[in-house]
């Protein structure tokens, strides 16, 4: 189940050209029956995925066909968002709150239970698709919809400049909105400014007398004399006189 754990979003892009005949619509009805039976196992068993990818893609290609109609430049973009199973705690709640935005708000789409989203009636040109999900950061995707070649699509992650043939998107990261409270740690307290100050005080209080002891008493006395002559109140006068 490696593919489940990966932070991957698979987005399949299909374009369907303009007007289609009724004949194809009839064919679809059969395809649709197929879909209801095949979709369930795909989500559960991974070995079948490779085999069925083609089939799904065909099905989606098919299901988008009757939808796009009318003028030449209405195309349909279909993609898929997959939420990583490992990090999704409130899976369902998060899933229904994901929005897919085309061209900075021109069109907003939502996800179906299987993670697919669709943009209808997209004119040929270069578009931008963004996915917004709380807790995740997705790179915007540049999508080139070709006017001349039906179905020819180029997609690039704008953040990493990675070109995608099958358009497999990786969310850049999972967002953590809160700082984590560090557990109680003696070292952290010692390293804090307060801790450093206390440490310094301890050094002064306990180590300075030790240093004093090492000084030769004669020399000490001489220094004290000197200081007294200068008339400067000295620290040594505050210290207890050595016996």
């Amino acid at each position, binding site marked *: 189940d490696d593919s489940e754990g990966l932070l991957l979003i698979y987005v399949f892009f299909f374009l369907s050209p303009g007007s289609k005949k009724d004949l194809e619509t009839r064919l679809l009805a059969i395809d649709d029956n197929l879909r209801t039976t095949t979709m369930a196992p795909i989500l559960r068993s991974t070995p079948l995925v490779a085999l069925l990818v083609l089939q799904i893609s065909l099905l989606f290609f098919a299901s988008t066909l009757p939808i796009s109609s009318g003028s030449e430049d209405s195309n349909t973009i279909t993609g898929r968002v997959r939420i990583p199973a490992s990090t999704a705690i409130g899976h369902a709640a998060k899933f229904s709150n994901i929005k897919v935005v085309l061209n900075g*708000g021109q069109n907003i789409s939502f996800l179906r239970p299987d993670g697919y989203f669709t943009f209808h009636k997209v004119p040929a040109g270069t578009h931008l698709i963004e996915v917004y999900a709380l807790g995740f950061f997705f790179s915007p995707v540049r999508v080139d919809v070709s006017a001349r070649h039906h179905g020819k699509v180029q997609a690039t992650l704008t953040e990493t400049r990675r070109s995608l043939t099958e358009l497999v998107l990786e969310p850049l990261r999972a967002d953590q909105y809160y700082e984590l409270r560090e557990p109680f740690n003696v070292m952290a307290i010692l390293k804090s400014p307060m801790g450093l100050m206390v440490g310094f005080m301890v050094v002064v209080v306990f180590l300075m007398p030790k240093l004093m002891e090492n000084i030769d008493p004669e020399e000490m006395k001489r220094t004290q004399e000197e200081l007294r002559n200068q008339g400067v109140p000295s620290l040594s006068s505050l210290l207890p006189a050595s016996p």
Partner: protein
Amino acid sequence: MAMALRLYLLLIVFVSSAIVSFSLYEDQVGLMDWHQRYIGKVKHAVFHTQKTGRKRVIVSTEENVVASLDLRHGEIFWRHVLGTKDAIDGVDIALGKCKESCLDVPNTVFAFTLMYHRSMLRAWNLPDGQMVWETSLHSAQHSKSLLSVPVNLKFDKDYSILVFGGGYLHAVSPIDGELLWKKDFTAEGFEVQRVLQPLESSIVYVLGFLHSSEAIVYQIDSKSGEVVAEKSKAFPGRFSGEISAVSNDKVVVLDSTRSILVTISFVDGEISFQKTLISSLVEDSGEAEILSPLLSNMLAVKVNKRTIFVRVGDQGKLEMVDSLSDETAMSDSLPVADDQVAFASVHHEGSKIHLTVKLVDDLDTVLLRESIQMDQHRGRVDRVFINNYIKTDRSNGFRALIVMEDHSLLLLQQGAIVWSREEGLASVTDVTTAELPVEKDGVSVAKVEHTLVDWLKGHILKLKGSLLLASPEDVVAIQEMRMKSSGRSKLTRDHNGFRKLFIALTRAGKLFALHTGDGRIVWSTLLNSPACARPSGISLYQWQVPHHHAMDENPSVLVVGRCGSDSSSPGVLSFVDVYTGKEISSSDIGHSVVQVMPLPLFTDSTEQRLHLIADTDGHVHLYPKTPEALGIFQREFQNVYWYNVEGDDGIIRGHGMKSSCAGETADEYCFTTRELWTVVFPSESEKIISTLTRKPNEVVHTQAKVSTDQDVLYKYVSRNLLFVATVSPKGAGEIGSVTPEESALVVYLIDTVTGRILHRLSHQGCQGPVHAVFSENWVVYHYFNLRAHKYEVTVVEIYDQSRAENKNVWKLVLGKHNLTAPISSYSRPEMFTKSQSYFFPQSVKTIAVTSTAKGITSKQLLIGTIGDQILALDKRFVDPRRTLNPSQAEKEEGIIPLTDSLPIIPQSYITHSLKVEGLRGIVTAPAKLESTTHVFAYGVDLFYTRLAPSKTYDSLTDDFSYALLLITIVALVAAIYITWALSEKKELSEKWR
């Protein structure tokens, strides 16, 4: 030396760690911020109360929200905010049994919400709001759309959802949204009026008018979409288009003279007309209007400000059965029990509203009559939706969901308001801040901390919490204590200025005062006007802010409104007391309002701000209309300039004052203006998409900026700068509609007094939308770069060249500097700019900047992203002095190495894990404490938080542990005593020796 180096390194560490200046621990949520969720004014409501368990109502609103509300408490189960252009045309619930396998759960009752908007039909799962399917239907502009869901839908292919939209009738499968068939009705001049599907029938009737003078009925087989029969009949005259379907085979329509009701019946496909003069129904007839409620075998017509009920007989004969006063809102009819249909009507009487539920067939049978006390500030009842339930004594009970004029939503049941939602706050149009009253002596102050012991206990708990030694119960207690602490919801001013009021004006013309502490509504006022019933609010200004003089006056705000939607309709001014929420006065000003200009620094003796209001005729009017204000204004008459932007024509005009208005209608407070300058953008190459000025009340702390190499830069700080962004006409559309070669973005900085263009910057291959923020001497704007296909953010900083020579100390000493020379827009500015661009990985809805009391604290940009979150970005990231390899000195100053894109640090989202759905604007206001700023974001939701862009350097944080301090002091005192005692002892023993 080594020590100095170490200290310096330490400093670097602190500086670099200070970049993430906003971050929050999860347990701090709700301490300084609050979040309120709304849905907007309800358009449609569908009840779902059949099953036992959760009772809910599905609503769609004018803010393009579809939501499921708990019928017991009014809470939101789930909601979805659609795009701003995705108006919802219809919402309904499809309930049914699954016969075959549908969505892996066979033989269960499956329910979902259907919503039709902008040619999309979407189905949402009722319990959790997950989208089940969506279908794109044929779309066309300016066409009616109708949604029809069969009652008690069964989930199989035989039943379909009928949607009429874009000139096509679509049949959609409820299982997966598959389009079963569609039928074209887009013929020239043909307009579909009604789609009817009688119960237990496979025939769908489509009624439409051809050129408004011929009625056509199509009979369509609902399984195949084939036209079974088609009948048409010409009407002598024209239809007005107002129509009401009264039964499965009859509709009533108003003709174009609005004085004749025409009953069209199409039994078995045969069309017959029957005309009834309205004057034969009521005596004092006039122009009639068919009201929207759907009643069976009856229709409601509004004639001469009265609502009359007209019963439609079997043969299409009309008779008036009842009439009500105009102020009546009605619901659609609702099947109650065995062939009985009821409807509700609500009317006002004084401060009460009367809810009546009657049977449609027998208007004398009153099923329910209730009177409920209603707040005057909610206005009239706008819409009513009713739902019935079976009481324990087997009789019918009714609950009514009513939408008031101020957009609030209330549920009435058993003569009481069960819950209410202030949905007006979902459509805030303007926001300003106001101070709370000063705490007066003698006024008892609620005790915050009870006793010293309690206080100490609380702090020990906090200490435990911060050392992570607290048990789960302690954590709960700490959280509770924090929420209640420090009297944050008191109604008086505090020392730090944390408690304030945000005054919000909504689209319904209602004014709300929200407390910054907990977000509660302190007061609300629905604006009235002598000229018209309900003026629409435009904007909000601070009218009177007493601080030096007139301290006994209450501060007030000015609400500028307008009677009608047209810009030339007369304006209305309302003055509202901020402390009490009372409307002090309201006046009809007799001229239109195009632009409102608060005059900077001009206040009269009662501290009323002087305002100029420009009308459509090019005159300006001075307010307040007092001789004193006139005197002040006339002193500065020659120094008053204003400008206006004609976005469609691409012209910016500057004006100066000329003289008093001539003419009999004008008073002495009206002035004419003369045009001083114009900036005309060539319409074939440039189109204005954004203009922006600095906030007039912004405070700039220092004009000089000292850089690392002891160089001084002087900021060009002028209140008269206008930022203008233009784009090639082709690039004015959406992303994806233009190639990089065709589009260019040009930004200008224009002095609004002289019309001089101070700076021009062109971005080839870029397009809008442009979102900008202007503060001090810099502008930051966000736009789309088509070549890189990424969003970009550019910063432009403006510096004054003429003052740049004042570096020499001797010049300053000898007074040969020009620092005290007055700044004038007329002196030719010698200025230079620095700019830099960065990529930004998200679409943006709005940008704001933090503002503090003295302007000392560093600034943060508040970027409202399209994901409805707000990102706080330090201004240091958009500093044109950033270089790839900053020198040691520059690093010391805090310059961040240049990167090609701006970082998005998740912890710096000030909205943390919340979303301000439908975000439209962000307002910042300074607190009294220099480090802190208030941030208020509005959209469909409201969000407030308090920010400290450079951390709270001037006060202790809430987390500060007083207990630790106290314990330390106690421990120190104890240690002093112990050591003193020990030393005494030692001294004694030494003396003995």
